[in-house]
């Protein structure tokens, strides 16, 4: 894995900082290397902070009223209520589903000290509501809910997300998001992370879940790309994001060699 004078890689340092065991070889290098020791110290410090971090506590609503009154802010500067905000929560800070959602969600709910965020309806005109459960007296707001409600980007809503998992033979992961803009236009943002051999090129597709049909969205240059979605395209029907490795063979069909894939979820 590691040879000669190379530093221990960041993943191994991360595992070490989290308290996992690593190979004797790697341990010996870290002990002897100032750079790796400094990195490890910083990562261990963040780990300590996180382990003792606790949840954020939102101030009571009357605090904003006092701020607005003292500053003489107009009505347009008042924050919307929680119920009004619930419909426009962005997905980036809430829940990104994986292909294996049930175990992930189970695990998340069992250990999460804060409130849990649960999607209500599958999708309603490109948006969805969230319900917060378990917030103690409305004061101890779990951090997830706090940010789910307040983190709003004005012009864009993320209406669906996907975690892209590698297909056999590939060592890459990725994520995808569907942004919906105020004018109704939608953009698929694809983000690939990992070692992807690029002898050919990559192409982004939306597939039917049973792979009985597919729509090409274009080529992915580098590891990130934005793809305009045709207005009539039904994301319920073509709900699976797929990134394939294509060859310059003149054949426009899907090569059958998918790098990552994952279902979009609201």
């Amino acid at each position, binding site marked *: 894995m590691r040879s000669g004078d190379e530093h221990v890689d960041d993943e191994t340092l991360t*595992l070490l900082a989290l308290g996992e065991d690593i190979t004797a070889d790697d341990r010996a290098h870290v002990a002897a290397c100032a750079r790796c020791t400094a990195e490890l110290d910083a990562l261990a410090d963040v780990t300590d902070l996180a382990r003792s971090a606790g949840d*954020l506590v*939102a101030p009571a609503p009357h605090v904003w009223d006092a701020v607005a009154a003292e500053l003489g802010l107009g009505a347009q500067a008042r*924050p919307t209520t929680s119920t009004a905000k619930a419909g426009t929560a962005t997905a980036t800070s809430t829940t990104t589903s994986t292909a294996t959602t049930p175990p992930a969600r189970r695990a998340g709910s069992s250990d999460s000290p804060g409130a849990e965020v649960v999607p209500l309806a599958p999708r309603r005109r490109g948006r969805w509501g969230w319900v917060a459960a378990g917030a103690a007296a409305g004061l101890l707001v779990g951090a997830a809910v706090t940010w789910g409600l307040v983190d709003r980007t004005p012009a864009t809503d993320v209406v669906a997300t996907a975690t892209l998992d590698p297909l056999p033979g590939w060592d890459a992961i990725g*994520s995808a*998001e569907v942004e919906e803009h105020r004018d109704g236009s939608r953009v698929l943002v694809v983000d690939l992370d990992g070692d992807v051999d690029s002898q050919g090129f990559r192409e982004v597709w939306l597939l039917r879940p049973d792979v009985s049909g597919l729509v090409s969205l274009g080529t992915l240059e580098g590891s990130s790309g934005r793809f305009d979605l045709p207005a009539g395209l039904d994301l319920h029907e073509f709900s699976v994001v797929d990134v394939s490795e294509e060859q310059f063979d003149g054949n426009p069909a899907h090569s059958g060699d998918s790098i990552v894939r994952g279902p979009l979820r609201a």
Partner: protein
Amino acid sequence: MSSLVAPSRSWRSSSEDPPVSASEQPTVRASAARDEDREAVDRLGLAFAAGDEAAVREAYERWSALVHTIALRSLGTVAEAEEVTQQVFVDAWRSRHRFDPSRARLPAWLVGITRHAVADAHERRARDRRLSGAVPPVRESVGAADDRVVDRVLVADELARLGDPQRTILRLAFYDDLTHDQIATRLDLPLGTVKSHLRRSLARLRTRWEVDGALR
């Protein structure tokens, strides 16, 4: 617009990556979600500095829990924490001409104001106590805006901003003490995916802490 934000500190690790083999090391780069988040913070900083009233509300919605939690942990009473929270946002808005979005992120600036407000509250408390000769109702184990308090709250804030499965993975590693192996089994994810998420998420927490906790 992104050039306006704390430029070099954020992603310094990319230039210092160890030369490991290509198959072992995913590229170090910001995810699209994080980029959007940074751009949103930049836009909000510019609007705030420009005096857009909607930006106060937006800043309050985003960071009042951060400010309030720092104050609460430092001072120990809800009443004082609320007072500090109010003061921070009022002061921030009134002195917005001193905020330079090309030099600092808005949350870092707010955290800096919070440190001062908390220190003032501690002084006020000590003065009141001297005047009245009363015994303090709360045992003061916390110093004035203890740096660790601020650091912890910043990390908690960033942890809350992670999407899933990253947040779940990190929580299992932090609070359940599971190894990456056990997490991969529990979540039915590839081992490499879990390792990669752990590395990137921890790096993200570190960056946030270093960037927004920097103003003292």
